[in-house]
């Protein structure tokens, strides 16, 4: 049993934390790229900015400023610091539901990001700054996993994380391979940049060796069963957590949607797919993730009272 508002807040903590971590990685890869080759760097910066939904492609020519704003601009609701502030604000609202260990991790990240030294720390070493946030967010996940009861609240937290993750990876892949005007990226430097943005470079190399190909990247990031950032892996977790939450609620709506999406990826014809079919599947994934989000909200949080009043 858990308050509807509380479940909603935990779900959003998961989403914002996942988003912040993803943005950190995007910013880091973007800044790192500028150190090597200027042409490809602009392409990587374009991918990163497009993946976070920034329409202003001119920013790609000054990646440092773009990364700085993405990290620390509090006016921008999509910045890393805004995501973390929102995660922490939600955590404050459910302070009684998360353990002190979990809260402390998130509060610490927030204090660091909003403290007076943040801008200087970023200027002194942007890569180290972003790495520290990612490492702190891993500590947050670890604290949640190790200290919170793996009950309903924890499931809503993870549901938010995995739903956000599936959408973020889906959007990133769409930017790289689904843009009909530009065509799929095939530059080696940009492709490894994409793998880095997904935190997938090392696991990919172990699986496919240094043979970096668009089709294999898509296969790995969409259909791999074990890689925690593949869409298939994420949808399997979404289904798992929703099934458990729905069992106690007695409502199968969102669970049905999640099960269908999971099956789509699990039983996809991986051997015979190409970049064209991938684009179709990615669109379906994004649409169905949005549908699951709406359905979760309507089933667990903003349900109509008439249906639930005692007789």
């Amino acid at each position, binding site marked *: 049993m858990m308050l509807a508002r509380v479940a909603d807040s935990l779900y959003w903590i998961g989403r914002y934390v996942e988003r912040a971590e993803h943005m950190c990685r995007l910013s880091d890869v973007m800044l790192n790229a500028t150190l090597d080759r200027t042409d490809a760097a602009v392409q990587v910066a374009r991918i990163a900015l497009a993946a976070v939904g920034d329409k202003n492609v001119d920013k790609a020519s000054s990646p440092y400023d773009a990364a700085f704003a993405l990290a620390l601009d509090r006016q921008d609701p999509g910045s890393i610091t805004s995501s973390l502030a929102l995660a922490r604000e939600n955590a404050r609202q459910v*302070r*009684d539901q998360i353990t002190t260990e979990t809260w402390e991790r998130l509060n610490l990240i927030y204090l660091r990001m909003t403290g007076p030294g943040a801008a200087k720390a970023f200027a002194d070493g942007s890569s180290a700054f972003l790495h520290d946030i990612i490492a702190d967010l891993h500590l947050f996940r670890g604290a949640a996993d190790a200290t919170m009861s793996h009950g309903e609240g924890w499931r809503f937290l993870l549901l938010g994380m995995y739903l956000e993750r599936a959408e973020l990876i889906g959007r990133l892949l769409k930017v790289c391979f689904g843009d009909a005007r530009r065509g799929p990226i095939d530059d080696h430097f940009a492709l490894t940049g994409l793998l880095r943005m997904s935190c997938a470079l090392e696991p990919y190399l172990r699986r496919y060796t240094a043979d970096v190909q668009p089709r294999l990247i898509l296969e790995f990031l969409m259909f791999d069963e074990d890689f925690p950032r593949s869409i298939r892996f994420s949808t399997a977790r979404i289904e798992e957590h929703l099934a458990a939450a729905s069992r106690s609620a007695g409502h199968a709506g969102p669970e049905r949607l999640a099960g269908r999406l999971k099956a789509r990826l699990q039983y996809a014809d991986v051997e015979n797919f190409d970049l064209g079919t991938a684009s179709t599947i990615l669109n379906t994934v994004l649409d169905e993730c949005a549908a699951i989000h709406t359905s979760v909200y309507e089933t667990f949080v903003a*349900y109509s009272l008439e249906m639930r009043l005692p007789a």
Partner: protein
Amino acid sequence: MAERSIDTDPGRSSLSGAALPYNEMQTAEGAIRQHYLALDRRVATLEPEDLAERQKTLERFFLLQGITFTVYGAESSTERIIPTDLLPRIIPAEEWARIEAGLTQRLCALNMFLADIYGEQQILMDGVVPRELVLSAPSYRREMQNLFVPHQAYANVCGSDLIRQPNGEFAVLEDNLRVPSGVSYMLANREASRRTFPGTFRAAGVRAIDRYPDLLLTTLKSMAADWRPNPQVVVLTPGVYNSAYYEHAYLARLMGVPLVEGRDLVVHDNMVYMRTTTGLRRIDVIYRRVDDDFIDPLTFRRDSGLGAAGLFNAYRAGNVVICNAPGTGVADDKAVYAYVPEIIRYYLGEDAILPNIETYLCREPAQLSHVLANLDKLVVKAVGASGGYGMLIGPHASAKERADFGDAIKADPENYIAQPTIQLSTAPCLMDGEIEPRHVDLRPFILSGDKIVVTPGALTRVALKKGSLVVNSSQGGGSKDTWILAADPKDAQL
């Protein structure tokens, strides 16, 4: 004695001619009181850097826990902790025994008073307390008339403000029977000071307070236990923007009960429910941290979004218990306060163990003229205000301020009371690396359900400004841990 000990200067009084404040640590002759000896010795061994380091660790503990309030600035908002002092305030067992007995007696009588004025009104008929004083108080709730309250426990959680007078005797300055706060600071201060002076703490035999959440839950459950075998308790908070939100979340977490907001509640058929992920769930006891005015827009303030529509009717119907009961404020009204010793005698046939501060009611013509003639010596308070607002501290005010306040009193005498300026006692505090005396008060917490329990601990509030007598956190006050010593150190943890 070592050079750098907690040597406070008892002669430093802001008021020439007034009695010197009682010094918690030193006698008038300058000797360290017995119960402060161990702490004094321990502090004497610490370098100023050690103390500063410990102070920093303490502040970091509060910051990490999120025991903060937010200061909103133009560029960015920053988190500030409530100022907390490193050095504990220590109260020996025999002094505490008297406080405990006095507080129990007082709350017992005040609960009986509330049951009476919301029932037969015998005390008003007997003329002990003026009828119009009670019935015209804004905190009197007509809606509570003839409503059954289990165990006659109206004020389930009470936080009384005590001060120590220059003669060393504790007196009650104020009773807080509405939604008193500060208990989370008492608990957090303790957690922090255990880490700061572990050795001294262990040796002193400090009585444990960590059972407070458990006792609070037991008290709340006792309010419904007769009709619901395992009552569902919740804490009702105005929300995350309330300055005491940390405390609400803290108590809910330590009691293991849901923390709800008004928007989580639904009243249907005079039953109160909360919206959960699995549908509606019935609530039996609401520990509300929302003021009377805001708990139910249908009964009280119509513009309130903090409560639940229909809540009061559910309460009237006996389907839910609201703690503290609405309308308890009438018993901590600043004018009714003057009658509390009479109230205790009336119901219990005893003299008050803890005295009141002498109080002049401006509604009485003779007392009014005395107040107006002595504005430079008195503290004048508006009856309806709290938190250190609407107050004149005569000796510290300018002639113009006094004249303006005098006019305000004459215009509306019923709204004012006056008390002599009391020199609060002083305790040693760490101020920018130096140990200096600061004025302190004492807020213990008393629970009443099927029985009355006084927690063996308190919040000591500190007036951080040198010479200041105002300890409210809204007016630049801080706090420190309070050690209540056990008569026998071996019993401390029982």
